[in-house]
């Protein structure tokens, strides 16, 4: 397994899970356990098998010290899916309690080499405020539309044009035998192929172009042909969608990668993991497109746009808080928002030149927990008490009564007061 020296500069070479599986298969002791483990994970009663079946437990113990335990997969590698399946054969058995989130099967991303540049740029460009100040269309151009320019750039590149036309044709073609407007499965596959084969300078430009008009925002929303790849007759519950995603190795891996690279546990100076590595966040967001968990802009508003998978938290019963928390990793994700806005300012091109190459060792995944709060720091001293809304201490004593605000943590209630009372 890679050198575990955790210095940020260390560059361990990860064994990929196809090599690891071959190595295990060459060792009779390991390969027999590996076969047993695959049987343990096949059926529906996988949880029970892992909990009480002695043979499964023994198999897992052996595999924990085999190369399969520490193997990872490279993004976009050949036979990526098989690598991911090998990874989950071991790690599926390891995730305690089922609902806990997964660590990413992909190689960790290098921390960003110019963290301050982003934070300064973020603050100076007013990015942390809602309105995307800073981006301005050249005055000469009457109806400047960066998303249209992105489409033009793609159309003038042979490979991009061909791949783009291919997924659009697939996603907008009527599926005669099923009578539906299109085949979602085929459309997802075509989208994945587009995003795998076309350089990110074209694909990310189509996905994250900054908009100042509704026309531009609608074009951006249409990029993934949402009528086919995103929308459905009904919206499933988000926890149900997550469960379906986790039953598919590719979706599960890319969701884990998205959360590792785009979701920041609370109270941290930078807004993105890996020292504000926006590029890694955008890449893992884009790779979610074409899976069950395909996210998209929910409407064509350009000032305060929202990104979400196609699901709702209605009908979550007692797990509404957990559902809202999962949904917020898309709809209320500061890292993703900053990364997209930074892309809009072309800052990410600057980062490309500084060569933040993925693959170094620093496993800087912030140990996140399924904290149920938000990413705001839980306590900061403020001199005075927050004004209670309804004048008196309402049912929740000085806090808005409408239970729904419990779920969406509103800022003033979260900032604890540090009243310096001099005696």
């Amino acid at each position, binding site marked *: 397994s890679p050198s575990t020296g955790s210095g940020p500069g260390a560059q361990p070479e990860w064994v990929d899970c196809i090599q690891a599986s071959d190595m295990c298969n060459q060792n009779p002791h390991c390969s027999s356990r590996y076969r047993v483990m695959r049987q343990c994970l096949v059926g529906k009663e996988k949880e029970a098998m892992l909990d009480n079946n002695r043979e499964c437990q023994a198999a897992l113990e052996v595999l924990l010290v085999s190369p399969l335990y520490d193997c990872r997969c490279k993004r976009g590698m050949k036979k990526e899916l098989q690598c991911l399946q090998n990874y989950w054969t071991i790690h599926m058995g390891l995730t305690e309690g089922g609902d806990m989130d997964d660590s990413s099967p992909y190689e960790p991303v290098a921390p960003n080499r110019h963290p301050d540049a982003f934070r300064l740029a973020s603050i100076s460009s007013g990015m942390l405020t809602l309105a995307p100040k800073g981006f301005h269309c050249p005055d000469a151009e009457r109806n400047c539309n960066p998303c249209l320019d992105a489409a033009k750039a793609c159309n003038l590149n042979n490979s991009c044009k061909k791949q783009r036309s291919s997924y659009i044709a697939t996603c907008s073609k009527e599926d005669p035998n099923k009578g539906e407007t299109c085949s979602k499965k085929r459309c997802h596959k075509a989208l994945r192929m587009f995003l795998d084969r076309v350089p990110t300078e074209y694909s990310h430009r189509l996905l994250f172009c900054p908009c100042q008009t509704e026309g531009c925002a609608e074009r951006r929303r249409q990029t993934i042909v949402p009528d086919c790849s995103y929308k459905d007759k009904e919206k499933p519950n988000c926890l149900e969608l997550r469960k379906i995603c986790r039953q598919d190795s590719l979706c599960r891996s890319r969701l884990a990668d998205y959360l590792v690279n785009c979701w920041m546990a609370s109270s941290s100076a930078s807004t993105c993991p890996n020292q504000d590595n926006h590029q890694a966040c955008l890449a893992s967001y884009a790779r979610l497109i074409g899976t069950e968990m395909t996210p998209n802009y929910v409407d064509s508003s350009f000032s305060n746009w929202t990104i979400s998978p196609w699901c709702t938290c209605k*009908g979550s019963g007692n797990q509404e808080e957990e559902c809202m928390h999962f949904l917020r990793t898309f709809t209320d994700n500061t890292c993703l928002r900053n990364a997209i806005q930074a892309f809009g300012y072309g800052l990410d091109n600057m980062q490309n030149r500084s060569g933040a190459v993925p693959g170094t060792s620093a496993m800087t995944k912030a140990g996140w927990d399924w904290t149920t709060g938000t990413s705001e720091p839980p306590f900061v001293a403020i001199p005075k008490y927050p004004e209670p809304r309804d004048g008196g201490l309402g049912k929740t004593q000085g806090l808005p009564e409408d239970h729904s605000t419990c779920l969406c943590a509103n800022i003033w209630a979260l900032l604890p007061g540090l009243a310096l009372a001099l005696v």
Partner: protein
Amino acid sequence: LYFPQNDYVETVYVGQPAGTPILQLHAMLDQDSERPHFYLCWNFMRRPNHISWFHLDVSTGVLSLNKTLEESDFALSSEKRSGVNRKNLLALHAMVLPSTSKTSNCISRAPRITLDFVNATLPTCDRTDMKELCFPHRDTSNPHIMENRFPGALRQLRRLTRLNVCPNYTITYSVESGLPSLRLTHTGSQLVVTAPLDREESECYRLLLVCTVQTESVITKVETSLDVFVNDEDDNAPYVNGTDSVDVVISFNRTKGGSFGTLFVFDRDLTPIYPVDQTHNKYVGTLLNSDPWSDKTFDIKGSFNEKKSPHGGIRETVHNYQLVLKRNLHVNENRTVQLDYLVNDTSYPGVEGTVLLHFNVTIYPYVNVSYSSQVGRVCVENCQQFDGFTVTYRLEVPDRNMSADLQSCYAAIAVTQAPDELYGFLYVNDTDALRRPECQDLQYLLVAQEDHTQQEASTQIHIQLEGEGDKQFLSCARNRWRGDCESAQGLGATSGRCQWRQGTEKGITENYSTCSPDLRTCPDSFCDAVERKDASICPQDCTKETVVGGHELGLGNGIKAGHGTCHCYPEKCVCEKEDIEEVICDDMCKTIIATSLLLSFVVSILL
């Protein structure tokens, strides 16, 4: 017994001595008699090595150090990543049982304790921030309490790992919760609920926790909020708000699958749709006192959705029920039926978990059959509204004992109809017959018969042939220009001549210019029974071939929209702008010409 919290978070440091308390777990009672017994446990994976470093008090649930944490332990934990694939985070699991137990296998949903193992000693008092003294670093896990349950402590507010860091500070906690039964215990550091809560009253209480740190000279208050959620259980019976019966009248629409009348049943409890196979709050409905005919004919379809109650916005469920036809009703069905439908909330423990709904159904027969006909298309009156029964059209010879020769003339015209269509279509079936002089004037009897009751209606149809019938007709659609079109006799042209439709709009429009056998039925985006007999009758509606030029295909076939003029060859259709009459002189040039004319006029006057 259940844990109100799924996640516990704390930080441990090298050098902390054995016996140091870290955090306290709490369990809530399902029955008053239960006594929680806390145990560390581990799942199917190996027993984590670091588990021996910790001790969990069986009765108090206080987790403390079993040994002093050494540098070597830190190296060990990051080296082998025992059990957790993230470095320096130690994961433990705990469970609570109603009685003592030897087992170490975790039962399902065992809460997770995540300890951030820092390779440094515990910060001294002067280097400890007030916040650090008061609350755990990232403890944002909100407690969930089941409604209607027994009182009990649900959370230790004090930060046990910092108890003795600043011995001469006094740290006290207070809670502002707006609910008397949610307050601090007498010891002043544990949050307790003293009476059963009711989710239907409030789903969540936002508390303001205030930690006051008093030193010799300064009092500091640190505040943070905590949401305490109240979980739902099925403790409310279904009820009807308003009427529990509805009158349903069935006349024209008698098709299988048709739905009628809606009744609503309310339930103040939740009906989760996740996980999909969830049985909680399952509603079952049964049709009572129904006769065999009703059983074969009617069904009740139920669906539900979640909504927020007007007062307090508490989530509740609304079920709605509709009467559905399981089969088509015959045209002469004439009956009144009362259907009683019992809705049962199967997971409601109480007795009155049911509601009875009443559907009073009246079915009218469909009596009078009269007639209207347009050339090319024939229809029994109101046929557009028929739904659920079928009519078949046929042509009959008015006088059976006419000569065989004359009878053979009547093969010239036939009537057809698509399976799901209610219209009949007259079309030329035998052109040879039409060429014979004696067949130039034909009188038919058109009969419409309802399939089930065999009820009939008939009318006279008089057909005259104009012009010579011997020409080989081609598709009207081939003509690209108006002149050619209106002078051509095309296939399927009911009026004898092809008809030209001139489009007026720019770009790709549904109103494209084209040449058609009958503008009433072609193009109308519907490839009807006659057009289906030969695609060249109306390729605009029926073509499946390639279409060149700007266009939009219809659903399945045909050209829904086209650019300029659409005309079709056997193997392809082309939509293109007519030769654009180049605008010789646009506005700018008109103004120049006008001003120069004016100037020259003025000059000539001056001269």
